[in-house]
């Protein structure tokens, strides 16, 4: 058990070091940092001096570990485009993305499980058929088209909800939140649905198929024979046993919510990390790209690690195997 956890942690650190290497290589080899920092009027001494100051005359490995050291402390240099420290920009943008991801994640999980259980229990009902058909269309639609469709219906035709931005936000100790104002909440609805819909469909389909699998098992028939109520059978006995694979997939989906936020944020001009990243690619703003890459990798690796550990915690059978 302990050796398994240790192995997974070491693996995660290795992955992060590799990602760090990619980010560092971007810094070091995409354009000359000296070129970016010195103007046209420069002497050979200036270049030499700056090379010494930046540590570019040191061996590659030393430079790499210095970069990692800086990154761990949250120091990613200065944005080429905005001329401000990258960590400052990231801190400013992060709340928008995290709030959006949180709301759409909750939407996806709660509706995914509810609809999944419903379609599994009332398998032949017309409600289930409608939900399954709609979900099939939902999976085939690209995220950005869903966003545009929602904007068209709710902003252009009905004029109920705003089509871009975060609305009015409140600043609480450096964290800007849109949860506290009516316009902030209204602005959140469409982006959250757009981002959560695809994950919701996935979770729903997974819960449904797992649930159907479990309901076929002998212990469910036995529970029924014991005269337990349908509610207890469905929720206490069946749902509980479907949750193991659901946790894994849901956990991994949380990662892709943050990645797909890039698309949603662009459609709705939501001022978060994803929009920042897309702009950084367009302007080849390497420090921002590298920082975003490192940040998102940490999130992904942490989520993966947490899911793996949770998996062991939830399923006792894995504990035995892993300790061998």
């Amino acid at each position, binding site marked *: 058990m302990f050796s398994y956890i240790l192995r997974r942690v070491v693996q995660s650190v290795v*992955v992060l070091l*590799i990602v760090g290497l990619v980010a560092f290589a*971007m810094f070091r080899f*995409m*354009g000359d940092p000296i070129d970016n920092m010195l103007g046209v009027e420069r002497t050979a001494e200036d270049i030499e001096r700056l090379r010494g100051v930046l540590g570019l005359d040191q061996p590659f490995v030393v430079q790499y570990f210095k970069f990692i050291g800086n990154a761990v402390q949250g120091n990613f240099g200065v944005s080429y485009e905005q001329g401000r420290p990258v960590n400052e920009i990231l801190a400013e943008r992060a709340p928008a993305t995290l709030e959006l991801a949180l709301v759409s994640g909750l939407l996806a999980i709660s509706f995914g499980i509810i609809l999944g259980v419903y379609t599994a229990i009332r398998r032949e009902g017309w409600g289930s058929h409608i939900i399954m058909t709609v979900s099939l269309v939902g999976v*085939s*639609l*690209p*995220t*950005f*088209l869903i966003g*545009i469709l929602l*904007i*068209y219906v709710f902003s*252009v035709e009905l004029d109920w909800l705003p*089509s871009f931005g975060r609305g009015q936000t409140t600043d609480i100790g450096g964290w800007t939140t849109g949860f506290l104002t009516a316009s902030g909440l209204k602005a959140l609805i469409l982006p959250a649905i757009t981002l959560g819909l695809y994950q919701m469909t996935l979770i729903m389909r997974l819960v449904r198929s797992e649930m159907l699998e479990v309901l076929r098992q002998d212990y469910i028939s036995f529970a029924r024979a014991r005269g337990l109520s349908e509610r207890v059978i469905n929720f206490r006995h069946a749902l509980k046993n479907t949750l193991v694979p659901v946790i894994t997939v849901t956990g991994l989906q949380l*990662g*892709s919510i943050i*990645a*797909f936020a*890039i*698309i949603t944020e*662009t*459609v709705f001009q939501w001022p978060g990390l994803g929009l920042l*990243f*897309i702009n*950084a*690619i*367009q302007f*080849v703003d*390497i420090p921002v*790209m590298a920082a975003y*890459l490192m940040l*998102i*990798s940490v999130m*992904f*690796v942490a989520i*993966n690690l947490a899911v793996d550990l949770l998996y062991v915690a939830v399923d006792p059978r894995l504990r035995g195997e892993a300790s061998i």
Partner: protein
Amino acid sequence: MSRLYRAWARMWARTWDSDLAYAFRHSPIAMLATLVVTLLILGAVFAPLVAPHDPFNPATLNLMNGFTAPGTPNAFTGDSFVLGTDNQGRDMLSTILYGMRVSLFVGVAAVSLGMVIGITLGLIAGYRGGWTDTVIMRIADVQLTFPSILVAMLIFGIAKGITPVEYRDQVAIWVLILAIGLSDWVQFARVVRGATLVQKNKEYVQAAQLIGRSGTAIMLRHILPNVLSPVLVIATISLALAIIAEATLSFLGVGAPPTQPSLGTLIRVGQGFLFSGEWWILFFPACTLLALALSVNLLGDWLRDALNPRLK
């Protein structure tokens, strides 16, 4: 002549009687999807012949024709366009046909690239085993941790940073192919590796080894033909995903250059006119993308069910 004809007839009869063709003839969805895909591909390939206008020839464009609604004649020039025109007076039908050309080319090329890389690495990993296998599959696992669209964006960003500014538009399409291709090889590698592991221990492989054939020859001539049917399924589904990935990247402005607009670029442009009422600039490219992606997807699903021996 007649011998050639008989050979063709025999081959046709064999194809017609095969299990796959039987399944195809009994699936209306597969036939419809094939029809739609074939029509769209033909339209894209023969776009210069089929399209009523050349959207990239400034001499044939008339700015007065801008924002003409579909089917109704323009108020100033009296010209009529089936699907209307965009803000610059370009015929939407022609623009869509040319855009589909870019989308399909990028999709097919990217899937081919991913397929070649994935099959090669999968064969090597499965056949050689040992640390080669471990290294390749570790890399695959790490890449699988990140969503492929993110990997593609990153590759696109890096490639854009490396290319000098004046060449960026020219190489953008190739960079896009590289980015999407490199982001989806993992699926192929995993499936081929798994199938190779099964085939490796069969007698025909041992026989080939005994008569002294080289590892490369065994992998390519003996094992590869036997692992191709799952690859076909994944390639079809990957094509739908690649087309959507390309559209997404172009929509975000990190894909096809303005000089070679794909369906995604057209949707990006069309979104700007959503509020001013020119719905057709957005609607028709979006529908084309949907029809293309959905039919390829349905075809892939059907192929998976038809080729899956477990379901028979």
